[in-house]
């Protein structure tokens, strides 16, 4: 636990910066197709096992082609644990709980793997560029890009404050020992607030008047690989959804 934010954002960035056939695809192709997979999976009826398994197989295959490290991917998948617990509750409570619970688990896993593939094969600026090229309102893109950018700045600030506490002999290992957490969070909040104000002033200094201009330079271009990826993925999941149900 050295870098407070190191494992999360930095880990994704490192993997997204690698190279594979999937990494090289146009971000738009990946966004549209992987979201489509998640939507089709979500609409597949309970108990259509072969369809559900094919959909999961498709995203896992993409992850394999992208050469995502297994341990990395499993660690990212921890995010779905709370939902799996909910699925487990379903198993216990509902009449046909077993079928519904397992269906939910499969759908979840498919969607989560799809999103891990998307975020771990596309460097974040490129991902944002993709969303912008898909006509996402620029203000939304700007807000997300702010979040990403300042997550790093805040993470560093958090880390520095943590070290400063340790330097003064603070050794809390468990959450309930963190009696000083409240003031620290408050301090971080106040720092962020004044940081936000300064960022706005700096933006205004550079002529910002409330409408975000386009700043991406090289236009994206779709090529044969993107078309093949899109066709294969779409055909596979839709065929599974219609034929195997």
């Amino acid at each position: 636990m050295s870098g407070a934010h190191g494992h999360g954002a930095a880990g994704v960035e490192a993997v997204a910066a690698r190279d594979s056939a999937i990494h090289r695809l146009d971000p738009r192709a990946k966004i549209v197709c992987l979201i489509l997979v998640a939507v089709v999976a979500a609409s597949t009826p309970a108990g259509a096992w072969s369809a559900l398994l094919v959909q999961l197989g498709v995203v896992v295959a993409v992850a394999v082609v992208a050469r995502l490290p297994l341990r990395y991917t499993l660690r990212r998948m921890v995010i779905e644990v709370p939902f799996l617990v909910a699925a487990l509750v379903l198993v216990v409570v509902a009449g046909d709980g077993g079928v519904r619970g397992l269906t939910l688990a499969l759908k979840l896993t498919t969607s989560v793997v799809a999103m891990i593939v998307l975020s771990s094969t596309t460097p974040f600026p490129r991902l944002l560029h993709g969303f912008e090229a898909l006509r996402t309102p620029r203000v939304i893109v700007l807000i997300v890009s702010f979040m990403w950018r300042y997550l790093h700045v805040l993470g560093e600030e958090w880390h520095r404050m943590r070290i400063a506490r340790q330097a003064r002999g603070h050794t809390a290992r468990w959450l309930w020992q963190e009696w000083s957490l409240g003031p620290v969070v408050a301090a971080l909040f106040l720092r962020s607030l004044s940081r936000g104000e300064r960022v706005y002033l700096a933006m205004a200094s550079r002529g910002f008047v409330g409408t975000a201009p386009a700043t991406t330079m090289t236009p994206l271009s779709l090529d044969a690989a993107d078309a093949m990826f899109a066709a294969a993925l779409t055909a596979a999941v839709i065929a599974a959804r219609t034929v195997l149900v």
Partner: protein
Amino acid sequence: MTPPIVELDDVHFAYPDGQHALDGVTLSFGAGERVAVLGPNGAGKSTLCLHLNGILRPQSGTVRIGGTEIDDSSLTEVRRRVGVVFQDPDDMLFMPTVAQDVAFGPANLGLDRDAVQRRVDSALQMVGMTHVRDRPPHHLSFGQRKRVAAAAVLAMEPDVLVLDEPSSNLDPRSRREFAEILDALPQTLVMVTHDLPYAWQLCHRAVIVDEGRVAGDGPIDHILADDALLDAHALELPEGFSLPTQR
């Protein structure tokens, strides 16, 4: 004598908490002049900077840029002509990549894509940061971020460059390299700093601001040689540093 590009006339400004940050400042800077604004912490130096491009407006008195008073109608033009480089580059760099960040200013001016691209290229080249153009800012060192922040302002092609503590937090090499970049610029430079040798190296004129007023104004060689004046305003040359007798 070239006509002044920046003119402040009896500028008063108080913050909402009642603190009088500027208490009747009258100053003018000529085109191409390089001025160091010196003074203790809380003297009103940063407040002064923020008046130069209309981020803050005087409660009384006027600020003119190139003869035009700053008001709502001249604001965009003023911000194009006067670029402010903030002390902390993380306050300035907010876009996902360096190139996109440098493009932000020119894009706000409504330039077309090619023109923006040219500005980005030349600004990054001026600060020697072309090789990091596609990287996110948090992958750069502090010194590199500082240079990119300067490029982000230079891409607006300003007539006046205002720098808040340009040398703070820089290691000696970055500090020197940043000075070399600034020294090569034709723009009017206004720099707020506590780093007196840095000010001496880059500027010809020094203005001392204390308690919201101008407490001294003249050639920097004279100002920095006036021990009584420096002492009266909590300014000190570093131990062991003496002004070279000639440049």
